[in-house]
């Protein structure tokens, strides 16, 4: 605290003029302390630091359906008949090329290839292969853009999911939603720009608040997690006996006090605090309005599945995501855990799909029929893929798969991506990428590009150098864009 007071002294005019070098130094320090000039989260007209995107955007909002745990691409989207043929035989060294294995399956005496127990068929005009586990997704393949050649370096969950969300395997950096909130601001002042929904009907690898955190960006840009349940935000309602008439006056006075403090101390977090109070005030009306599902026809609930009436489940979250998108929330991130099937894969993945397939497809259909898919980007994917060999004992109807960062599948749909398109190819055994690899940073660069942001130009100076979501990597994958 003391340094701030001395700073204030040093900014005294006489000091500035007589000790110019020190004055300039403190001016520089001042700009370091408050690089934002309190632009973020100022409510109406919050256009972010960029004021407008670098290029005309294709997407104005993103719904990211994050499948935490690493869904197995061989059981879902990447059909490998060669695995059938070579089922049970050892993973060839020529394919593995000495790649490191995890501590979990690395000690196995053998690495037997495991074919998918589930059958595949081609669907839609694009002929995408989808397994029998995803009948609903199979219906909408002509709206999806599959990327089969994703790869990452991270082999375990925490670094991998941190990598996807922040661009670095080490924690501490802002998440995608925070970058977008910082760069582009908000289209709807009444709701947070970045909202996170975690399924209550799933468990597995842990998730951390830093995955939707703001890192070194102003704290108004962080993701707001709605609780999984009937009351996504607590204490919105006024308590018994309080009508709330004077709340506005209270907030105004509080804001004045905070402003005085800011003027004397100069800590930008004070402005963020003021902004959060204001947002909470507006959320008192906006959140109940979003959660009030009485205007949804029964057909919609049926389309999403019976879980959709149970707030907090994946299906209910998908429906809520659509409602938030209708209200122009810029970044809506869902997390559904439980895809980490090291063992007992066939049964476990079947349950996972049963819990998510219908709602995922319903979200696409729902956005499309409402015309929202025109400018909303939907992403489905996990943090890495799974191995083609079995972890643990390989039997006729049971096997497990370990983590595999070298190739996995994600799909995107909506604004700016080619519908009914398949990009990239893995090799016959689904171990390496054969064509058109897409790195996590490339994916992030492409995502930002779709929102009109040049990933190389949205940056923030911190600890002496400029940071950006893609760090010093990443190329936009133009081939999947319309």
């Amino acid at each position: 605290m003391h340094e701030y007071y001395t700073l204030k002294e040093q900014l005294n005019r006489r000091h500035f003029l007589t000790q110019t070098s020190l004055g300039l130094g403190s001016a520089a320090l001042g700009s370091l302390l408050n690089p934002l000039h309190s632009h973020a989260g100022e409510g109406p007209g919050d256009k972010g630091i960029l004021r407008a995107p670098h290029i005309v955007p294709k997407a104005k909002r993103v719904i990211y359906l994050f499948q935490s745990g690493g869904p197995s691409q061989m059981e879902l989207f990447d059909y490998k008949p060669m695995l059938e043929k070579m089922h049970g035989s050892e993973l060839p060294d020529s394919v593995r090329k000495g790649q490191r294995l995890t501590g979990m399956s690395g000690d196995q005496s053998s690495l037997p290839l495991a074919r998918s127990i589930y059958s595949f068929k081609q669907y839609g005009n694009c002929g995408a292969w989808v397994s029998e586990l995803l009948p609903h997704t199979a219906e909408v393949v002509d709206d999806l853009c599959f990327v089969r050649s994703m790869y990452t370096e991270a082999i375990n969950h925490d670094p991998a999911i941190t990598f996807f969300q922040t661009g670095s395997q080490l924690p501490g950096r802002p998440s995608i939603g925070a970058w977008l909130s910082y760069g582009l601001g908000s289209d709807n002042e009444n709701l947070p720009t970045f909202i996170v929904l975690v399924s209550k009907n799933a468990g597995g690898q842990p998730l951390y608040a830093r995955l939707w955190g703001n890192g070194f960006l102003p704290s108004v840009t962080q993701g707001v997690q709605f609780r999984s349940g009937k009351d996504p935000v607590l204490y919105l309602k006024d308590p018994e006996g309080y009508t709330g008439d004077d709340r506005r006056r209270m907030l105004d006075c509080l804001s004045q006090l905070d402003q005085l403090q800011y003027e004397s101390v100069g800590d930008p977090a004070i402005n963020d605090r003021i902004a959060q109070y204001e947002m909470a005030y507006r959320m008192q009306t906006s959140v109940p309005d979003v959660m009030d599902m009485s205007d949804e026809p029964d057909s919609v609930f049926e389309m999403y599945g019976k879980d959709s009436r149970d707030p907090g489940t994946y299906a209910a979250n998908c429906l809520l995501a659509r409602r938030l998108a209708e209200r122009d929330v810029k970044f809506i991130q869902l997390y559904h855990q439980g895809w980490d099937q090291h063992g007992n894969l066939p049964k476990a993945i079947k349950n996972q799909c049963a819990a998510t397939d219908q709602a995922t497809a319903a979200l696409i259909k729902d956005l499309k029929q409402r015309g929202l898919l025109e400018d909303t980007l939907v992403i489905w994917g996990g943090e890495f893929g799974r191995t083609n060999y079995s972890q643990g004992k390989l039997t006729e109807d049971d096997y497990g798969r370990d983590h595999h960062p070298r190739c996995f599948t994600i799909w995107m749909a909506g604004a700016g991506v080619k519908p009914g398109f398949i990009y990239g190819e893995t090799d016959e055994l689904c171990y390496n990428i054969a064509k058109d690899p897409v790195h996590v940073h490339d994916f992030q660069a492409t995502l930002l590009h779709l929102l009109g942001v040049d990933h190389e130009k949205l940056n923030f100076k911190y600890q002496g150098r400029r940071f950006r979501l893609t760090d010093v990597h990443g190329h936009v994958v133009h081939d999947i864009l319309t």
Partner: protein
Amino acid sequence: MVAFFGRFHPVLVHLPIGVLFFAVFLYLLSRFKKYSYLTPVVDLTLFWGTVSAVAAVVTGFLLSNSGQYDETLLFQHKWIGVSTAALALAAYVVRKIPFFRHTVNSDFFFALILPFMAVCLAVTGHLGGSLTHGSNYLVEYAPVPAQKLLNPDSQMLTTQKKVDLGSALLFEDAVQAIFRQKCAGCHNTEKKSGGLDLTSLQAVMNGGESGRAVQPGSVETSELIRRVTLEPSSDFFMPPEGKTPLTRDETALIEWWIMYGAMTGQKVAQLDLPENLLDSVKKTLKIEESETTAISAVDPQLVGELETLGFSVRQLSQKNPMLDVIYTGGQGSFSRENLDALIKVKDQVAWLDLSSCGLQDDDLTVISEFNSCARLILSHNAVTDAGIAHLTPLAKLEVLNLVNTKATDESVTALTEMKNLKSLYVWQTGVTTVGVERLKQNHPELKVVGVE
């Protein structure tokens, strides 16, 4: 060795230019009594100027053997350069060597020789610049009247004509622009580095010392593409270090041109170029700039006004001042007052989202004035066919969202008139497959969503 020393000519040549001009300047100054103390300095400067001029001439001779330069220009530059050095030497000799000082009127001759030397220096310096950068280097970006005056018949003038995407030609406008900007500095009719001239189709096809630069239809065997896509650190990478390399889009554009047969007369609009290349073409031809400067950014005060009324107003992008307007005030708070305020920016609104605003049919008459609107969202409003019919003047409309309105098949007639319409959303309306069929007859490319 010859080539090695010859390459020092561009380095050394700047010395005589600077020093000899300075000598002239000092001489003129020294003629004034106040500066008469400068007289010995003139001698010193002239001496070193002469020495450096001779060194420049020697290296110049060595460089001229490399054979890449236009012969006429080279000849002129060479001999005027030699004259400059000779005159500088003569001026020095006349002034300093005792024999001359005492036999002729040294001051008179000195004053006679010096201006000739200065003129020769200026001329040969300019010719040297032309050799390296092309004779139009100075005038290329001069205002048009100046260009006409100075260089009436050169073919390398940047065409100031406004090209629009509809009439732009792939080679003549786009590819040649890239060659002009990034290659023709060294690959032009006067200076042909590597024997290659890139200022006309014939010249490009003729190739250079390394053979064919461009093989129509084949990117792999086109040397030009190989050179610009090498590792930038490679010795053979083009353009060489110091010059701006081609961007990925520019390279892709030239590749497309080669794949299409490396011809002239192909219209950009008729080819199936991907979007990013079209953007690149526009950038090369500076089309987007001229389009958007036609519409200036909207007054920020007006934006503030609209925002207090509950609109979210933002520019489409940093370079594009057209507006994306969403009404965020919530149901029930939208009124005619809001529309009347919005009308003030009607020419600049490209995307308009008025869903759930409680709009009525007569509100749509106001909306029909938003003639630049490309994307219109009217979902969840109780507007009927009568209101929708008002929207026909919106010639630029590409996306129309009528979800949960009272539209029926009757609107098809009005919708048919929207020639630019690409996507139509009619879920939860009275529009049926019959209406959609009729619509598709006139608009086979139209995407209609929401009717099973």
